[in-house]
């Protein structure tokens, strides 16, 4: 097990380095210049001289070729220095850490909701394969997979905020009100939007797994012994269907992160998504890299934990991995 963990950690480190190189190159070679923030005629009618621009580049760490700049950034990052935002000169790490809880909260709640809803729906759809209940659930899940988050978000706002007045249309808090209940009230619509796609995917997985489990001998035996259907479903099939959920949760962290970017934008949720979109628009490379690295670490950690949990949940897999690792 120890070897397995060490091997996975080494792999994660390698992936992080590759992702950082790739992301840095994309920012470097994409058209646009962070100095636009200071040199645009919209900012000032004064056009800086080349010398003044060079001084500013030097101060912002924008001089040098891609390798030199990457090495400079990576060297500082390894020492825990995330750098300063090119656009607002505030420390990147502080800004990210300020926004991280908001995004984590949104993602965690969405994931929780997805699991909560998808387990019973997936089980029912699988158990009653090709019957009306399966058709309804499958139809809804296909719809969930296809719904564009920004459109669905606006629709929910129109219905539940504009017409019914149940929830606020945007933001994370009522100004001047500092309570968890108020935040949760603001979070309801974005959480639903963020969870819809994952819920639909999870339902499909659980359904197909349930169908497979239903054909297993232990289910046949239980049914032939006269065990009630509900007990077979919830007591036996469910346990074996939970395994793929662990993998899916890990695998879907990426979808959640990118999904939160869109959802945060629609609902004015002050998380990493809005921070990242602003950074991309202003070519704020230190901020983009900081958020990219964090998202990558969250994603890799999610996958890693899923693997570990999978091993614990199913000893056969754990043993298999141990055998593979010698």
């Amino acid at each position: 097990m120890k070897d397995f963990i060490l091997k996975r950690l080494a792999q994660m480190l390698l992936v992080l380095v590759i992702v950082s190189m790739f992301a840095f190159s994309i920012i470097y070679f994409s058209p646009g210049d962070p100095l636009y923030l200071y040199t645009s005629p919209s900012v000032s009618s004064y056009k800086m001289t080349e010398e003044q621009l060079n001084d500013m580049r030097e101060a912002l760490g924008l001089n040098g070729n891609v390798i030199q700049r990457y090495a400079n950034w990576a060297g500082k990052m390894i020492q825990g220095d995330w750098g300063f935002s090119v656009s607002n000169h505030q420390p990147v790490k502080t800004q990210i850490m300020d926004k991280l809880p908001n995004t984590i909260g949104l993602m965690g709640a969405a994931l929780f909701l997805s699991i909560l809803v998808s387990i019973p729906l997936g089980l029912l759809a699988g158990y009653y394969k090709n019957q009306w209940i399966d058709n309804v659930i499958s139809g809804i899940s296909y719809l969930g997979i296809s719904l564009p988050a920004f459109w669905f978000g606006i629709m929910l706002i129109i219905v539940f905020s504009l017409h019914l007045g149940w929830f606020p249309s945007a933001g994370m808090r009522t100004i001047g009100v500092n309570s968890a209940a108020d935040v949760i009230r603001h979070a309801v619509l974005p959480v639903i939007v963020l969870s819809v796609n994952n819920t639909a995917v999870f339902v499909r997985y659980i359904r197909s797994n349930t169908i497979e489990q239903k054909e297993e001998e232990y289910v046949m035996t239980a049914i032939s012994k006269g065990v009630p259907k509900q007990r077979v479903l919830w007591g036996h099939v469910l346990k074996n269907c939970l395994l793929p959920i662990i993998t899916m949760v890990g695998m879907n962290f990426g979808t959640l992160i990118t999904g939160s970017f869109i959802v945060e934008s629609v609902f004015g949720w002050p998380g990493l998504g809005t921070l990242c979109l602003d950074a991309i628009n202003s070519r704020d490379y230190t901020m983009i890299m900081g958020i990219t690295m964090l998202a990558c670490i969250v994603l890799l950690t999610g996958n890693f934990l899923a693997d570990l949990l999978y091993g614990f949940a199913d000893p056969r897999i754990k043993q298999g991995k141990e055998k593979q690792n010698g």
Partner: protein
Amino acid sequence: MKKSLISLLLCLGMVSALVAGCGSSAGGGKTEGGTESTGSTEGTESAGTNGNTLTIPVSATVTTLNPLLDTMAEGKLQLSPFSDELYYMEDDETRYYLAESCEVSEDGLTYTLKLKDNLKWHDGEPITADDVIFTADCNANTDNGAGFTNVVFAGEEPVKYEKVDDLTVNFTIPAPSASYMEVLGKLQIIPAHAFDNNTDIVSAEANLTDIGSGPYKLAEFNDGESLVLEKFDEYYGDAPQIDQVVFRVISDPSAQEVAFKNGEINYMLVSSDASAEEFKSVDGAELHQFAEGRVKYLVWNKYCATWENRDAVKAVFLALNQEEIVAGAYGESMGVPANTIFSTQNLFHDDSIKGYEQDLEEAKKLAESSGLAGKTIKLHYNTDRGFMEDTALMIQQQLKEIDVTVELEGIDANGFFDVVFTDQDDYELYLNEYAAIGDPDSVVAGMFDGTWGNNVDTSEEILDLFEQGRATNDMEERAKIYSDLQQKAKDEYLVYPIAYPSYCFVTTSNLKGAEEYTTTPVFEDYTKLYFE
């Protein structure tokens, strides 16, 4: 059993994430540089039309409260009630804010700026000439990238400035410049004491504290969520009539529209003709429109070999139907056809000059003779600017008439200028826009004299006219010079001015005073606003 335990743990993990995230978020906003909020705005309940609070949506909160460091449109919008200008010039009227007066010497080189007496910063300290000098020093330190550097540099030459007494400062420019009076007036000053007289201001903690001079002071700043301002009781001007001004982040335009209809906000920018038409019939909403003071225009890239024969340029200009483009892209509410390179908000705009008129037969002939017909050309447009894509599509359609295929390539604002403000020769056309308010010797001149758009083929004669207009203070003489310049620009097929866009916004109908001044971005003077 183990599996159940794992699933239980997983669920608990998710709940913890929710509580952890929300819990920390609910802990309160940051105010004045990071201290916890005391909830002083309790009871506003998302503001909007409730209470005496004006709520304005923004796509992002400012990252600084220092007006020198955030001069983009949305930054200006948020800092306008917080920080006052010295004075504002509009046509023949000058409205004085922090300044009592500004007088120019006979030789046109020295500007004597006098502040009003008894002005106070939001922290209660007096506003003095030392603050003006400090602000000028901050702008002169170009590492700051401050937005008013043109106050302390005339071209590459530095402007001299010196304190005369506690309320007076002299600015001496190296050569007469008719637009300097206007440039100086827009300066927003910052308190020297808050920055400990250190001109290295970019990372200063003071940037997020109460460093304003305007009618509203900082109440609460929640980065990425909202900026809450409350009226400043010691303001030197008329007392603000609205208690609070809240800038709330709602970045999605559709969500803004819903929030407006829901009564959560009092104002929103209208960005399409369809929305403008819709709001005309919405109960409780009032639509406001005035000229934005910008020029949307089409440029041919002088570095591109396609235009070696100038008849090719003429062919394009004569092939375009401006009325049709403006009607199609801007509709009835969002813009009007442009006739010159100056906007109607510029001093010396000459409305007697006619814009380009379509002449398809002539255009076809010129396209054939110049070899343009049958070619495929590339047009760049800025995807972050309104109406650009629709305009590009209509140009593409109209140039088909002269057998020219147009490839469209949209680029976001940052990347766009990296392409079009260079000497790249691999594209033929681009669509752009520039601010054109007040004196044309400011941004407009810069768009044609090589300061910004160095791929515009401006003739020596036009450059000379810009110089002449800058060097004289005689208004009649300037009017004649700039009229000639506008006509010359048209005759030389310099650029194709397409439209003067409208600044269009909607407010709740109980908000009054929104059209007191038509400065953009709104509102020049928040003390004029009130709820009926």
